[in-house]
């Protein structure tokens, strides 16, 4: 047992730190820390900086231009990025589609799409969820009918994150309407400029536009945009969902969030003393921190097993459930810390405007963020689905 990083790992951490200190623009880290949106330009800029460094694709093999880092290195990189308030890397091309193409795509597809993901030329979005499907992903209805050299796609996708910025979408479509639910599904790559595609914004309860509906009306997609075999798309989809889900516990986000809460609670006064000295607030904070300290070790234990080649099983589901509970609890602490200043809807601040903040430092976005992050336990397989999985695996066939 050794809870510390070894010399190699420490050297790697220092390298990452030095890079972030030098290359991460201050206005960008400020925006992340204050919970402001970066917009497409911001994301593109950070993408380019990482690409220049060669650190854009931690989990890709070297042959495709990736870093081929092990699980511990990836964890260190993510931890340091969170610590430095670096922007989140948009995952759709890099951590979702990339590995699918690398494993199941044709040589032509790999040669064409992978470099464009790295260069930032293509912004991908994900066409999985459909209205009414929810956690029952396989009940999807969007149809693709073969017509000569094309598929003709009709249907609707929803919860498409940052689809408003994307020029490509990877989609699950039903190519065999008579097959059983999970069979008859194919995996298609679709150019968003194709006629018949319409993107409609969904405004979330905190006023943000981060997800969309995508409507397909007689959209013609060349057959060479099919990944792998027809009707085998569910296999690729599952691979995408279970493979390479790093940072699922969100420890770095939680740590940064907890630090922000502490800063606010030190400045905020309650009954003549700093809020952080109020025993009831301090108790909430301490419990969250204690849970997070344990979660950080749980995460490392699982990562360390993954690094030694053991595939993560039910542990991903455990990290997802507890990780989101902790993150949401920290969001709740933040709104409590902000007091009356959690009430304003500081849309300008959220959208990156130039208005001065309304409340004390860090308070403006905490109310909105509390509500926005309710999504953490819903999207990407709800916590109820995760608990089903845990029980199924650990109770075994008997239940």
């Amino acid at each position: 047992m050794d809870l510390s990083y070894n010399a190699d790992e420490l050297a790697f951490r220092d390298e990452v730190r030095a890079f972030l200190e030098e290359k991460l623009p201050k206005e960008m880290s400020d925006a992340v820390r204050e919970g402001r949106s970066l917009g497409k330009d911001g994301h593109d800029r950070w993408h380019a900086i990482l690409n220049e460094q060669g650190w854009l694709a931690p989990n890709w093999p070297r042959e495709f231009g990736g870093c081929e880092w092990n699980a511990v290195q990836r964890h260190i990189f993510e931890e340091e990025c969170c610590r430095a308030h670096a922007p989140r890397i948009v995952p759709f091309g890099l951590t979702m589609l990339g590995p699918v193409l690398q494993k199941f795509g044709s040589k032509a597809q790999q040669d064409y799409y992978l470099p464009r993901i790295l260069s930032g030329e293509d912004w991908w979005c994900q066409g999985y969820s459909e209205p009414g499907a929810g956690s029952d992903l396989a009940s999807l209805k969007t149809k693709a009918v073969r017509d000569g050299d094309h598929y003709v796609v009709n249907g609707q996708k929803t919860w498409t994150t940052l689809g408003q910025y994307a020029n490509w979408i990877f989609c699950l479509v039903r190519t065999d309407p008579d097959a059983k639910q999970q069979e008859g599904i194919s995996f298609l790559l679709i150019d968003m400029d194709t006629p018949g595609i319409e993107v409609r914004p969904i405004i979330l309860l905190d006023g943000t536009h981060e997800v969309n509906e995508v409507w397909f009306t007689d959209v013609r997609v060349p057959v060479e945009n099919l990944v792998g075999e027809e009707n085998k798309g569910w296999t690729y989809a599952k691979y995408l969902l279970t493979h390479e889900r790093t940072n699922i516990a969100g420890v770095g986000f939680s740590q940064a969030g907890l630090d922000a809460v502490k800063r606010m609670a030190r400045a905020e006064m309650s009954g003549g003393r700093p809020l952080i000295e109020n025993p009831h607030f301090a108790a909430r904070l301490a419990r969250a921190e204690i849970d997070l300290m344990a979660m950080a070790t749980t995460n490392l234990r699982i990562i360390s097993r993954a690094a030694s080649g053991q595939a993560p099983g039910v542990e991903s589901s455990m990290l997802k459930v507890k990780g989101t509970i902790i993150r949401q609890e920290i969001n709740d602490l933040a709104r409590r810390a902000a007091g009356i200043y959690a009430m304003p809807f500081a849309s300008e601040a959220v959208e990156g405007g130039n208005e001065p903040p309304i409340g004390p430092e860090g308070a403006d976005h905490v109310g909105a963020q509390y509500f926005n992050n309710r999504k953490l336990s819903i999207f990407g397989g709800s916590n109820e689905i995760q608990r089903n999985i845990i029980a199924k695996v650990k109770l075994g066939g008997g239940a």
Partner: protein
Amino acid sequence: MNFELTETRQMLQDSLRRFLSDRYTTEVRNKIIDSDAGLSTEIWDQLAELGVIGALFTEEQGGFGGAGFDVTTVFEELGRAGVVEPLLDTAILGGGLIAALGDADQQSLVERVIAGDLHLAFAHSEPGGRYDLNHVATSVTAEDGGVTLTGRKAVVANAEAAEILVVSARESGEAGDEDGISLFLVPRDAAGVSVRGYPLLAGGRAAEVDLDQVSLPESARLGAPGAAYSAIAERVSAASVALAAEALGAMETATELTRGYLLTRQQFGRPIGTFQVLQHRMADLWIELEQARSAVINAAGHLEGDARMRDLNVAAARNLIGRAGRLVAEDTIQMHGGIAMTQEYELAHIAKRIVMSDHRFGDTDHHLEQFIALSA
């Protein structure tokens, strides 16, 4: 022992519920929220006409209610419909403070409030004051036959719509003293008053209000100098009862919406209401809803009594509802899934009303501390 509403209150509840369900639909309400004013004068007029504002004042004050159970009857309905119009600010707080402390001239403003002709705001909290009711640093200085106010007021709900701000300021002592606080009627357009308005997350608007050497006549003061604290405490208790009842009403809507959703939404080939985990979670929410209702009844029933018992029951209600409300808001969103994350869905707004009510006049922990202090 009797837990039935009186006939008058039952009629008020029925007519208000019918009016809001007919006229205050999700679509109408969401448009009001998006509007620059953040409230609908049309709805306001109709509420006044229905007697909803009058129900919040006693007969001596020109109304026909004013007791704890009148407040809860009205606000439970407002909560059920997610109403964003500022009845709390104009009637319970602004109007209530004038009714409690005002002289004959000042009382005439209450008539205008009841008629729906006057908006008020209670400018009391200050930056850094958090939920401490006695934290008033805004200063009063005497000048020729009048006074000058200087200070800053934080998150003043309804400040932009208000013709008059009811402003607390300190005549003597230090921030933290209960003695020495006065209330003043300050026209919002008086010289030296500046208002930076913004929308609130759960609908409606508020503002940061700067008071820079605002000159007022002596007649602007409500009641005797420096003696306003106990009236403020009483009205804030009434506001807490109103907030608790409003949250209760919103919790009812949240559970009703979820019940309906569980019965209709299909997943894995069956209504999701057939999943035992969701059934038990609903059972727990219904239990907490009954507890919340009881807590509101306890607080309302003690609003007119002894101040310690009033404060004890109010603190208990707001602490319980702070906990139960968070549970209901979070769990009903979770049981809905994605749809509840969208701004246009009714529950999104209702959940925001529930959680954000925890930020007015003390949150769950603040009221727990009050309860501990009072029950020692």
